[in-house]
């Protein structure tokens, strides 16, 4: 009789211990990397792409002029859909203007300027966060219709694959060599800025589609 009591007491103790152990369980955060990683600065800019462009005349005064000349500011300030905006800094815009042998963007055929700007707005969000962009180039839909609108984009995830840019991880590359016929490769100088209406990547030159060396590009 006493023996049975002892047995049941052991069972009771084991059960209580087990219950206590499980009651203390709580979901823990996932294991972090062993190596220390610094925190990134907040990429969000709490304004539209248009407001951001105007807030940085030191970098985008010429592009602002181009957008105003083309009457396309609404594309940069809309909040209905998310766009990926490919900004061209003043260096790139100056080269674009010089290509036409003129001094200001207003001396270029406005249709050419519109096409250029349309080519630099992509439907959807493509950036380095949340697996929104692979490391292999993909075709995306720009606002420029037809074959001239063909554009590929990718993100670099290691310095080994980075192309001529100070940014390695997260650098955005347009028209990677051989990914889009003979189009010239462009590499971002600033990337993954998050305005309220999409994403902004900044490039030091104008990208354009070119099927082959003899192809007359749209702009």
């Amino acid at each position, binding site marked *: 009789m006493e023996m049975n009591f002892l047995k049941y007491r052991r069972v009771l103790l*084991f059960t209580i211990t*087990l219950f206590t152990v499980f009651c203390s369980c709580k979901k823990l955060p996932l294991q972090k990397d062993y190596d220390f990683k610094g925190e990134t600065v907040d990429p969000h800019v709490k304004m539209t792409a248009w407001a951001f462009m105007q807030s940085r005349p030191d970098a985008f005064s010429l592009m602002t002029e181009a957008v105003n000349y083309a009457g396309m500011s609404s594309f940069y300030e809309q909040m209905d859909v998310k766009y990926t905006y490919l900004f061209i800094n003043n260096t790139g815009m100056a080269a674009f203007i010089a290509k036409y042998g003129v001094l200001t963007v207003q001396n270029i055929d406005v249709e050419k300027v519109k096409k250029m700007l349309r080519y630099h707005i992509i439907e*959807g969000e493509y950036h380095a966060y949340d697996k929104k962009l*692979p490391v292999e180039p993909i*075709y995306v839909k720009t606002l420029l219709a037809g074959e001239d609108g063909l554009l590929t984009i990718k993100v670099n995830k290691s310095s080994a694959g980075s192309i001529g840019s100070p940014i390695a991880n997260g650098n955005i590359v347009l028209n990677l060599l051989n990914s889009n016929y003979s189009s010239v490769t462009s590499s971002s100088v600033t990337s993954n800025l998050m305005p309220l209406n999409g994403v902004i990547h900044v490039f030091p030159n104008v990208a354009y589609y070119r*099927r082959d060396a003899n192809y007359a590009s749209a702009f």
Partner: protein
Amino acid sequence: MKLKQLLILISAFFILLSGCKKKEETDLSNTKAPEIKAILDVIEPDLNKADNVPLVCVVFAEAGLKSVQMKIVKNGKETDYKTVNEFYDNKQYSVKELPIWDETFQSFKIIATDLANRIVEKTIPITVTKYLAAPVITFSQPEIMIDENTGTINIPRTMFTVTGASKLTKVEVSLFGAAGITPVPLNPLFVSDLTYAFDQEIIYKAGDNALQVSATDAYGKVKIETLPIKYISIPAPMLTPSGTTTLDPIIAASGTSRTLTFTATSAIGINAIRVYRLDKNTLIELTSVSKLYSTEKNIAFSAALPPFNANTTAYRVIAFDQLGRSTTIDIQALIDLDYNSMARIGSQFYSKVADPAFPGIYCFYSVKDKKTYNLSQFYTNRPNIDMYFYFFGGAVRLYQASTNRPGEAWSGDLPNSIPLMENWTGTARNNTKIKKLTPGAYAFNFDNVTSTDLKSTAVQTYVNSAQVTADFANYVAGEVAFFQTAATSTSGVKTGIIRIESITVDPANNTKGFYVVSFKVAQ
């Protein structure tokens, strides 16, 4: 035993309990249905190109994609092409497909299903440009046939057409023959179009073997066709000097005459043998001696030339066959000119003893005798030597016989009682005049000079003008000089012309060597 079983059961219960978690369920009802956005509204593959634009579009799905199916519609039938169930980003998927196009493709269908099981599809039309054949080149005849044995050369017009499935961008014609490849100009001029018709009279000749036509279309497709040419030729007429007639120059006095004889043969018959007189560059037919024939194949031709005149430089005889082809013989005429061709003359090294290989060749030249003499002969017969040939450190010099080279041993032979030339006494040596002929200064050259030319006032004035260093020094092969022998010369006063044909200087002794020289002397 019962206790153990109880413990196991309780443990299993808790383990199972610990794995239980309520599945998270997302409310997708407020998300938008998938959206398929084509980058190109129509795909237009061209089977003639290797670099067609791929089929590209982007599928957006706010709820996330479950699958993307792709189908191809060919000949009205839909076939599965590809299904994608795994996505790097299931909210925006980039489609890039490059099927092996063929002309049965009609459309490409994309069916997107999102996690809310909403299905959206889009059909992208495909317009295929069919494979276009390379240009077609058609000749109007299978070959060009020309047979001289027929007695007439009948060359047909060359005609061909080029037809392209797309616009022609280039047509080139080349004639392949014994002389190599010759481009043939297009007639009419090429204009880019679907067709081109060539029509031209090409004068083919013996040795031509093919006409090659190359046509290129807008796709870069090239077609090359060859039109064979069969040109059966027979030899041109043969003309051979016979009897006493040779190809050597005729050296004769004006007013005299000579008869030239030849044999002429032709497989299709001789048509004519024409004789011409060449007065420098002027060709004058001697119609009195030219003859016409009907179909004779072997002819013994004899031409009694009219009396020679001093302006004639050559005679030309041309035999024509029945096809108009000809064979020409030129015989140089030296009227009132004495001629010594390719005479070997030694340098001053050979003033006394000749080279065993060239016995009798010394440096002292006699215009009258057209040969060289040694120092001893010069010393004893001074009027007979007009000039001597000298290497000044290997450079050519032409000296009149009266020129001294003081102190040089070659110019004397003291053991044999011949003093150095500067010490010669007695009979004077000839003071021959030598003047270099500047190329282009006269309307004649060494080859066509006449005695009239040499006797002209211009030449006489020039040859008697003061000599400068360039007149006797630094001649090179091919250069020409005038000379005039002195009144004391055994030849008398004669005006002549010399051409230095070649020079050989011994590399070990630059005073030793030979000249090869040609002389013409007006009589």
